[in-house]
């Protein structure tokens, strides 16, 4: 077990703080963020990554809280990245996922980080990908990503996670178009949480129908839980643990190459922004006949 998760005992917060600060640096973006991620990517991938997604109010936080003791038993240490929306008006955010956790489980074996989306579309934060890789490199065996929960298209977690569990509630058919969001095609497990609410039977039926339409051989399993009192949670955990065990190595590789490519994209964009701000970007003729092709030509020349 790495230093990061054992740090913090006996008041030694140095390694822990260093990990937390590298995530902050990633959130700030820029060349330091890219460098941190590239360093982390040099270590082979070993963490399992589990995505928990679903509409707001589904009980994602409560479910993670209920799964946590089982996850700790299994993996020994767990990191959680929980994303909440930033206000498009003010740029601020209320990050209220941590408060849903029972802190008694925490005991340094749990690293919980709240993240604001900061305008990033796709259900996670721009910094989530690199944070996963940094946590992996620091030796955290399981990283759970709790997505934003807007409910429409939030599929970026698919590229980051080995497995994704979709959390819904009875009555979901009325308000949440899971099939339109593409989640029925991408979820590895479906959880009907707040199973004590009316309409459970219908909800299960509707879900199973949606999942039957998929071209895959066996549809993903459907679970019912009441996260707040633990009902259905051990069974769900067993299934999720098995799913992650069985997740093909290629998913981890795909995750890694995705990270490398995304990092490269960001670097490229940064370089281009820098170029645009420089005098070299100006057209030699200084006229309206400049074209995108010419601009790019000048950019490539500058890079050489």
């Amino acid at each position, binding site marked *: 077990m790495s230093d990061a998760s054992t740090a*913090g005992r006996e*008041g030694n*917060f140095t390694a*822990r*703080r260093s990990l*937390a*600060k590298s*995530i*902050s640096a990633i*959130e*700030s*973006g820029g060349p330091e963020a890219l460098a941190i991620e590239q360093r982390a990517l040099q270590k082979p991938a070993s963490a399992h990554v589990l995505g928990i997604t679903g509409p707001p109010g589904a009980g994602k936080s409560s479910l993670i809280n209920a799964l946590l003791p089982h996850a700790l038993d299994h993996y020994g240490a767990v990191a959680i990245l929980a994303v909440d929306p*930033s*206000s498009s008006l*003010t*740029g*601020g*955010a*209320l*990050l*209220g996922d*941590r*408060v849903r956790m029972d*802190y008694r489980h*925490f005991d*340094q074996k749990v*690293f*919980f*980080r*709240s993240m*604001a989306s*900061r305008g990033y579309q796709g259900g996670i934060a721009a910094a989530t990908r690199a944070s996963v890789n940094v946590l992996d490199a620091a030796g955290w065996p399981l990283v759970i990503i709790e997505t934003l929960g807007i409910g429409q298209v939030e599929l970026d977690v698919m590229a980051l996670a080995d497995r994704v569990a979709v959390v819904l509630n009875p009555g979901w058919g009325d308000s949440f178009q899971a099939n339109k969001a593409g989640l029925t095609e991408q979820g590895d497990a479906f959880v009907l949480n707040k199973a004590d609410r009316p309409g459970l039977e219908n909800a299960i039926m509707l879900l199973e129908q949606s999942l039957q339409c998929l071209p895959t051989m066996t549809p993903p399993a459907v679970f019912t839980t009441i996260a707040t009192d633990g009902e259905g949670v051990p069974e769900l955990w067993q299934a999720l643990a098995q799913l992650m065990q069985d997740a093909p190595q290629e998913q981890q590789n795909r995750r890694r190459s995705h990270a490398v490519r995304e990092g490269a994209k960001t670097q490229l964009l940064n370089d281009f922004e820098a170029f645009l701000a420089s005098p070299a970007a100006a057209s030699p003729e200084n006229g309206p006949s400049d074209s995108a092709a010419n601009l790019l030509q000048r950019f490539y020349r500058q890079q050489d």
Partner: protein
Amino acid sequence: MKPKRILMAKTGLDGHWRGPTIVARALRDAGFEVIMIGMATTAEIVAAAIDEDVDLVGLNIGGHIDVALRAVDAVQSAAPDMPIFAGGTIPPHACKQLEAKGLEVFPPGSMLTDIVDSANRLTGLSPAQ
């Protein structure tokens, strides 16, 4: 300018949520990312401050000042550079004790604009007084 992160915790086991909610929303409206952890022990507050790497710790205090002072000491020991501010039902003698530890204190009747100004200053978004 990337948003600054503020931790909001209650040191007592008192569930009044009016005050902290109003402050959290005002800070959010001023562009801060507010991580609310509710009623938390000293150890939980320190763990949150460190792991969330916040720019400012906000404590809602009511009850005996020693409970809050323990939390303040622990945060200052684990992260000496992390500023702390506090609000709540804090009688005058307790305000003085907190101020002596370097905190800005906002008893009942404090204006939200003053709290937001303080947050801006303590997180370096505006110049220190």
